[in-house]
């Protein structure tokens, strides 16, 4: 067909835009050349683009926040940062709407008992009441009766302060964080095998690989921007293996999709190793030079022939052979995993079995070859590096190591006898609250009422506390249980650093001043410390001062941040730790010289034995319930359930069920576990195993997946077993009400327009991502 001349000439001439009237944002954007600038400026319309990063997942996409001439954030502009190269997911695009959201808390809320209503009080009154309650509880029951729970969406400076505040100001051993619910299994496995707790390779290495194995990671929905690397690898001929009980968007186009039964991952990977060994595909030279424990691992793998693993995992044995050959024969292969294999009572073992596979095939420490774990929260990686985790001190030091304790006490200016011992994990702290061993709690940047398993236990635990304070910028379900709620800043109202899934430290910049009445978490912690009598240890003017102490406190450790400065981060767009000096380029890829961070420089391979999930199947509960995320929402949904576009995209949870059960799409079904039951609309799809049902977890009761999940923990990482519990499905009469979003869907800054399409509204999508675009 020949190209005809355009028939536009008979129409009124279109008048091109006047170049002198650059559209908002773009002029400043062009001036910046897409490169982070150390100083940004307003364009002629008075708009400023502030370079920063997304507040949500562990990819940490670069973005510009659009700030109007009044100093208010009102939009987002893509940013050509190394990590995301302009890409953003729907959460990132809409994140800015929470900054000036009408639901923002702008004054401290307080009540003396849970029977009372909240009332707005002055900062002095809220702080004084909190300090008085801390003192009362600690004097009556001991210092450890008061606990602190932090969060992995906080900047690293704040997570450092959380650990220091608990141990120096509260003098309590009980501090932990919600990253405990995130990637601690991978962290534990990496520490055991490599002596370092981070991914081995940067995202960009994915583009260089020949075989990409993605295990237990719904990359398309949980880390959408990472898919550009996956598709990039595919463009260059890499094969893709996806291990997931569901056909996710990534699994849909994989060369091999292993839809195994939830809770059987380590049996699968050990069996893959069995085939690798049997077919002589191991890299014996690499193992001899760089690994210990190989003979023991090899002997254990012999116990998992494909025929046995196929029965355990509910997959064809041939698939195990196929995966082994594809992965081991690839010149360069990588394995990335996430919560799908980590959220288990054998989460550490699952990760170790992947590491053994990488090591046995020699796919470690090379461009395009290695392993990685994808962090769920923005600072899931950095959040535990500087002392927020119950067993860690800053710099990843162990709280049980006398030398490490001495080093930190020296920096903090306290006696070693004053530094408390290790505490317990987040879920264990809730059990202690239930038993009234912990009677007071401060929560910062977390929402356990939605995010912890077995909601009934969590509610009982929190209800049993005599005093509960929460830092947040929205009134979360957990904050609604508190006695005091401190209104704190969003990520756009303060500066600080986060470490993404590659262990690349990036800097977030302040885009606007906080609303009147709102303070930074740093200010609140320092003020509480001052009133508790530890003010001299918390004399920080802001994030930069905290970061400088953090850098010093991490110097010489594996997690060395000393060479990372705010100025360098703004110049480079991010530096991967370890970075021991200010002229060190950082360490994007580990083990390039073949040496790990153990004293002997070897990979310490660990024997893994598969065991069934903690919640046994029986005739009453024959199916697996597994949980996860949807692309429109983030963690407990406290932030994204308030943003109109995201609520419209995925307004409520659902139960994803295979057609073989005979339910109709949209029909109410009751999911029953040993913890309780809830009703969801069925989403009938062949994209899930017949013996498995999936429910996303972002919503509170009465549609909370975590009212059903089991609070069994991995014995080493203490991560809950979110990804598998026994359940059954029943017909139900009606679907439970979903709590209305706190504000009507719609944009904050712009009035809704009434728009209609001529075709009818599309039905619920097969993925269960709520609705298609409907306007």
């Amino acid at each position, binding site marked *: 067909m020949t190209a005809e001349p355009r028939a536009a000439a008979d129409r009124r001439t279109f008048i091109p835009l006047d170049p002198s009237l650059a559209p908002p944002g*773009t002029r400043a954007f062009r001036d910046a050349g897409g490169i982070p600038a150390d100083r940004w400026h307003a364009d002629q319309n008075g708009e400023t683009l502030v370079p920063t990063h997304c507040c949500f997942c562990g990819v940490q996409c670069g973005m510009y926040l659009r700030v109007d001439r009044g100093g208010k954030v009102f939009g987002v502009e893509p940013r050509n940062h190394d990590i995301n190269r302009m890409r953003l997911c729907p959460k990132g695009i809409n994140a800015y709407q929470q900054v000036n959201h009408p639901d923002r808390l702008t004054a401290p809320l307080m009540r003396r008992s849970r029977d009372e209503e909240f009332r707005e009080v002055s900062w002095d009154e809220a702080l004084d009441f909190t300090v008085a309650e801390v003192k009362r509880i600690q004097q009556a029951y001991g210092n450890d009766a008061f606990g602190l729970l932090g969060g992995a969406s906080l900047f690293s400076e704040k997570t450092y302060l959380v650990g220091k505040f608990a141990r120096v100001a509260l003098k309590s051993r009980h501090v932990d964080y919600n990253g405990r619910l995130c990637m601690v299994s991978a962290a534990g496995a990496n520490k055991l095998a490599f002596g370092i707790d981070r991914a081995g390779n940067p995202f960009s290495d994915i583009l260089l690989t020949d075989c990409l194995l993605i295990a237990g990671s719904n990359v*398309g929905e949980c880390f959408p921007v990472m898919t550009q690397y996956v598709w990039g690898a595919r463009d260059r001929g890499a094969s893709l293996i996806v291990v997931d009980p569901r056909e996710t968007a990534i699994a849909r186009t994989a060369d091999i999709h292993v839809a195994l039964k939830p809770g059987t991952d380590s049996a699968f990977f050990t069996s893959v190793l069995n085939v690798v060994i049997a077919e002589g595909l191991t890299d014996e030279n690499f193992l001899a030079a760089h690994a210990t424990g190989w003979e023991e691992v090899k002997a254990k793998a012999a116990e998992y022939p494909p025929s046995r693993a196929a029965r355990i995992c509910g997959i064809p044995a041939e698939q195990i052979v196929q995966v082994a050959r594809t992965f081991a024969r690839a010149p360069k292969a990588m394995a990335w995993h996430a919560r799908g294999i980590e959220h288990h009572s054998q989460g550490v073992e699952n990760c170790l079995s992947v590491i053994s596979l990488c090591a046995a095939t020699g796919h470690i420490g090379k461009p395009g070859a290695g392993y990685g774990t994808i962090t769920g929260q923005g600072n899931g990686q950095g959040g535990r590096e500087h002392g927020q985790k119950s067993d860690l001190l800053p710099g990843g030091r162990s709280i049980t190591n006398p030398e490490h304790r001495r080093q930190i006490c020296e920096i903090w200016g306290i006696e070693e006898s004053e530094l408390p011992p290790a505490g317990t994990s987040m879920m264990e702290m809730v059990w202690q609250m239930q038993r009234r061993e912990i009677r007071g709690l401060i929560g910062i940047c977390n929402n356990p009422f939605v995010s912890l398993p077995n909601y009934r236990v969590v509610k009982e635990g929190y209800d049993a506390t005599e005093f509960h304070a929460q830092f947040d910028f929205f009134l979360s379900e957990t904050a609604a249980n508190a006695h005091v709620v401190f209104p704190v800043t969003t990520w756009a109202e303060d500066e600080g650093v986060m470490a993404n899934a590659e262990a690349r430290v990036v800097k977030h910049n302040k885009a606007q001043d906080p609303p009147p009445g709102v303070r930074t978490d740093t200010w609140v912690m320092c003020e509480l410390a001052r009133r508790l009598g530890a003010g001299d240890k918390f004399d920080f003017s802001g994030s930069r001062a905290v970061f400088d102490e953090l850098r010093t406190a991490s110097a010489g450790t594996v997690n060395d941040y000393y060479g990372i400065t705010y100025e360098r981060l703004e110049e480079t767009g991010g530096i991967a730790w370890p970075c021991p000096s200010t002229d060190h380029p950082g360490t994007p890829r580990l083990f390039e010289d073949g040496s790990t961070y153990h004293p002997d420089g070897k990979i310490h391979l660990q024997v893994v034995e598969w065991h069934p999930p903690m919640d046994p199947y029986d005739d009453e509960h024959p199916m697996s319930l597994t949980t996860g995320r949807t692309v429109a929402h983030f963690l407990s949904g406290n932030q994204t359930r308030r943003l109109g576009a995201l609520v419209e995209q995925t307004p409520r949870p659902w139960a994803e069920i295979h057609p073989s059960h005979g339910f109709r799409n949209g029909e109410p079904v009751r999911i029953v576990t040993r913890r309780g039951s809830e009703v969801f609309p069925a989403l*009938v799809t062949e994209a899930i195993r017949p013996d498995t049902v999936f429910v996303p977890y972002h919503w509170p009761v009465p549609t909370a997946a975590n009212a059903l999940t089991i609070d069994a923990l991995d014995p080493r990482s203490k991560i809950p077993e979110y990804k598998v519990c026994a359940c059954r499905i029943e017909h139900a009469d009606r679907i439970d009400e979903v709590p209305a979003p706190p504000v009507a869907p719609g944009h904050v800054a712009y009035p809704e327009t009434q728009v209609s399409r001529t075709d009818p509204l599309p039905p619920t999508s097969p993925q269960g991502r709520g609705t298609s675009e409907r306007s």
Partner: protein
Amino acid sequence: MMGRTIFIDPGRCIGCQACVSACRECDSHRGTSMIHLDYTDEGHSVASLPTVCMHCEDPVAPCAEVCPADAILVTADGVVQQADTTRCIGCANCVNACPFGVPKIDLGAKLQLKCNLCYDRTAYGLAPMCATVCPTGALFYGTVEELQAERPGVQVADTFVFGETEVRTGVAMVVPAEKVRWPVPGGLPVVEINGKDVRR
């Protein structure tokens, strides 16, 4: 085919609706998205597909052809603009004429709204918002050479068949190299009709 345009690659779409959100954020019709995100094989697969305005070239923009108010203009570089607000009478002729179901009508304002390829951005050398943010590259903005440099061997088609009518568009779709060789009713792209390569 236009020099720089959008290429749609359904094989890469993960159904995340970043394009839908991004379209809401672009300045030409802020607050309303002009993208449809469809799930093509419900109940069987998670496959999804974004539809943006295809900026029809031949026959030239059916929406513009049928507009009684001459409100829909086509730029010299082939971008079919959304209706001129000073002319549009909200009659919805364009909605009925569009073979891809793209234009929408703001009933309250009696105005048509559609994708104008982010003219406010493309005129200044930036990509449209949807293609800029698309996390997977399912929406790609550039020339076909740029696309093929990034994705070796990729094939594209810009001809669609609706019954007896062929429509050639300014926006193109990535097609499987070996699989699509016949016209499919309902607007799927084709590269070959009756043995003839229709991709010019």
